[in-house]
């Protein structure tokens, strides 16, 4: 690196990603908020950060701009570790649109926006022409010019959000972080805000927006990063990330994802939860279950079993399966197999052991693939009571004949059949 990092207003374009987060872990108090998160964001990207409350979105943003120091891992902004940069240099590289700010003192809108120039103006000089021009431009883009002279306490909540966006634009940084930027905006200004941010991305900046509303994220962002349980559980274009199973286990809801008829972006509908979470059954007579999962079908099931206080083992699962990630996150022991290896005899032996030690076996409504046949047979042979969850009727699943035969044995045997996870929990209780 050449030159003093403090003097680089906007770092000259290099191949370095604007933001590069490597194996980041953050603990707040006793809680591991982020654990082993890695993320790279390039120029031109508008990334939507989604996830349930408390998943660590805000923590990720705060760490990205150096406000929080990670316990381990590193954050680089435009090539340099953010921890090594002086505050001024960080202020020239990262701008933040905060979630909410109490602006109760009588600064005018223009004065607040002008504060965005702070990292650019030397201590002993005033703002120059270029600074004033940047402030005016930022106000025009966010449509706050018309009330520029009004004191900030006198503007509405929605107008204030735009003022904060204007301040971040005036900061003129390659990276823009937005924490729920449109929560208090009407649909029109929500659209304008994201269009502005998308334009900025088009100009070669990068933006990361924590967005609570999945539809908004799907609609405006080209890349969605799903944060749940302290890690990134999915990352990619909305069409591939916002699927029922990903959303389902990240947010622990049953969700249906359909394309929006107008925008053709995925639209997420959360299904009403039949049983409120607090109402989990009392300690059931069954203490230990083994779950046959796979294909990302069992996320909510595993979460509910865990919440009901049941000890669960899971498997066999291929290593990349999102069910495996959920099981891991819940600290359940998992029988993992290589993605392409299939189930070998050794695995079946270990499965038999787990099944024998369990009080019951639960078969999630997995696709009945050929590879699953020996697994289901082993369960049927074990004599341990088995319960099948049939949220989807079998004729809507992928069904291989061998697996179907084994499945029928299970169902006819001592099995109970539950139409949903809550129903299953009732049975187990």
């Amino acid at each position, binding site marked *: 690196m050449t030159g003093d990092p403090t003097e680089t207003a906007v770092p000259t374009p290099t191949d370095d990603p604007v933001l590069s987060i490597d194996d980041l872990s953050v603990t707040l108090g006793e809680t591991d908020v982020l654990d082993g998160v890695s993320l790279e964001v390039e120029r031109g990207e508008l990334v939507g950060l989604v996830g349930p409350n408390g998943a660590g979105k805000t923590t990720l943003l705060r760490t990205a701009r150096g406000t929080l120091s990670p316990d381990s891992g590193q954050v680089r902004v435009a090539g340099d570790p953010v921890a090594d940069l002086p505050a001024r240099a960080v202020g020239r590289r990262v701008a933040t649109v905060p979630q909410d700010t109490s602006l109760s*003192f009588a600064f005018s809108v223009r004065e607040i926006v002008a504060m965005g120039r702070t990292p650019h103006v030397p201590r002993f000089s005033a703002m120059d022409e270029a600074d004033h021009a940047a402030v005016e431009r930022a106000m025009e883009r966010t449509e706050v010019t018309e009330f520029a002279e009004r004191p900030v306490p006198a503007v509405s909540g929605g107008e204030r959000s735009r003022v904060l966006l204007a301040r971040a634009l005036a900061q003129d940084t390659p990276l823009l972080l937005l924490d729920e930027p449109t929560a208090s905006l009407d649909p029109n200004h929500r659209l304008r805000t994201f269009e502005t941010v998308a334009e900025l991305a088009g100009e070669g900046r990068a933006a990361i927006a924590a967005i609570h509303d999945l539809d908004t994220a799907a609609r405006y962002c080209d890349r969605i990063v799903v944060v749940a349980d302290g890690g990134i559980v999915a990352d990619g274009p909305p069409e591939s990330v916002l699927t029922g199973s990903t959303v389902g286990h990240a947010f622990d809801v049953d969700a249906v994802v359909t394309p929006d008829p107008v925008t053709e972006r995925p639209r997420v509908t959360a299904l009403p939860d039949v049983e409120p979470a607090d109402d989990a059954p009392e300690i059931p007579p069954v203490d230990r279950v083994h779950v046959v999962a796979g294909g990302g079908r069992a996320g909510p099931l595993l979460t509910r079993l865990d919440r009901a206080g049941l000890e669960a083992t899971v498997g066999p699962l291929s290593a990349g399966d999102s069910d495996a990630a959920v099981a891991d996150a819940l600290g359940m022991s998992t029988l993992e197999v290589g993605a392409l290896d299939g189930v070998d005899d050794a695995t079946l032996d270990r499965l038999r052991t787990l099944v024998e030690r369990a009080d019951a076996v639960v078969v999630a409504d997995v696709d009945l693939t050929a590879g699953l046949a020996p697994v289901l047979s082993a369960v049927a042979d074990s004599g341990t009571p088995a319960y099948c969850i049939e949220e989807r009727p079998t004729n809507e699943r992928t069904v291989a004949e061998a697996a179907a035969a084994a499945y029928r044995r299970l169902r006819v045997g001592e099995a109970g059949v539950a139409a949903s996870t809550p129903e299953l929990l009732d049975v187990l209780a």
Partner: protein
Amino acid sequence: MSVARRATGWSASLAVALAGVVVLSAGIGPVAVPAGTAFKAVLEAVAVPTLAGGEFAWRHPFEFSLRESHRAIVMRIRLPRILLGALVGFALGAAGTVMQGFFRNPMADPSIIGVSSGAAVGAVASIVAPAAVPFGLGLEPAAFAGALLTAFGVYAIATENGRTPVATLLLAGVAVQTFLGAVTSFLLLQSGESMRRVVYWLMGHLDNAGWADFVPVAGVPLLPLFVLGCFLVLLAYARDLNVMLLGEEEAAGLGIEVERTKRLLLAVSAVVTGAGVAVSGVIGFVGLIVPHVMRLVVGPDHRILLPTAALAGSAFLVAADTAARSAPQELPVGIVTAAVGAPFFLFLLRKRRVHEL
């Protein structure tokens, strides 16, 4: 209008007002000096530093023919006191503004981290038990040392892992003030014959002020230079103070080294307040209400607020002290600032929104 122009305009107006108050005050007293004479006498006191022939000297550009008694009264008795009041008011007004912005709390004043209580312990100890004061410090040095030690102690108590949360600082300040109040009360009980002097000091006073109070060294008055230096440092951080009103996290995001800036603002405010309190005792309310009043007039921008509040503090304290020494029985000025300031503040509280920054 640009910030610089507004700041200069307001400061110039207030400087003129201050000069007016100084001249008026110089004319008021047991021996009435006509305003014109007082004006000329004050002008005569104006001194310009020169380096004539490589030798440092003060040159007085103005000379008038005045009655010698008038000149002596203004120069030797009234002006030192007036200018000391102006200086202390300036320091308190500036430090109060910075502390309110720093703490984002309208209740903050210059002594919020215990500076005044520390100074009181130092001063009272030097009156009551001079033998117990280390290094044989006199009253003013003891007060100044007490102020600085206390401020540093409060800061150290509130700091953990290099961070000093403002709320912790505030609470630590309150607790330490209470503790030192107990120490002062105890010393007061032991004070015996010197009790009157102790009480008088505690109430804040400017009487018996002389040119020696300006700490002249080789003809250069150090105290005003010191206060001015502190003020310029604070002024250089006025923009940072504005940004810090947004909250520390946002200020950091806008390129402010928050902890370093906090340390510096706190240290400079404590030192300048300590210097003021050491020479004048505890003068309450100037540092609390003057910044509020000026905020109503000029707005929250510290680049304008800081110089105007300092000048207004100056003028206010000079006026209050003039009233204090004009009373049938001379009063400590602290009584006047509180007696006048508190009702005025309550009036503002009812009429305008002074409870916000």
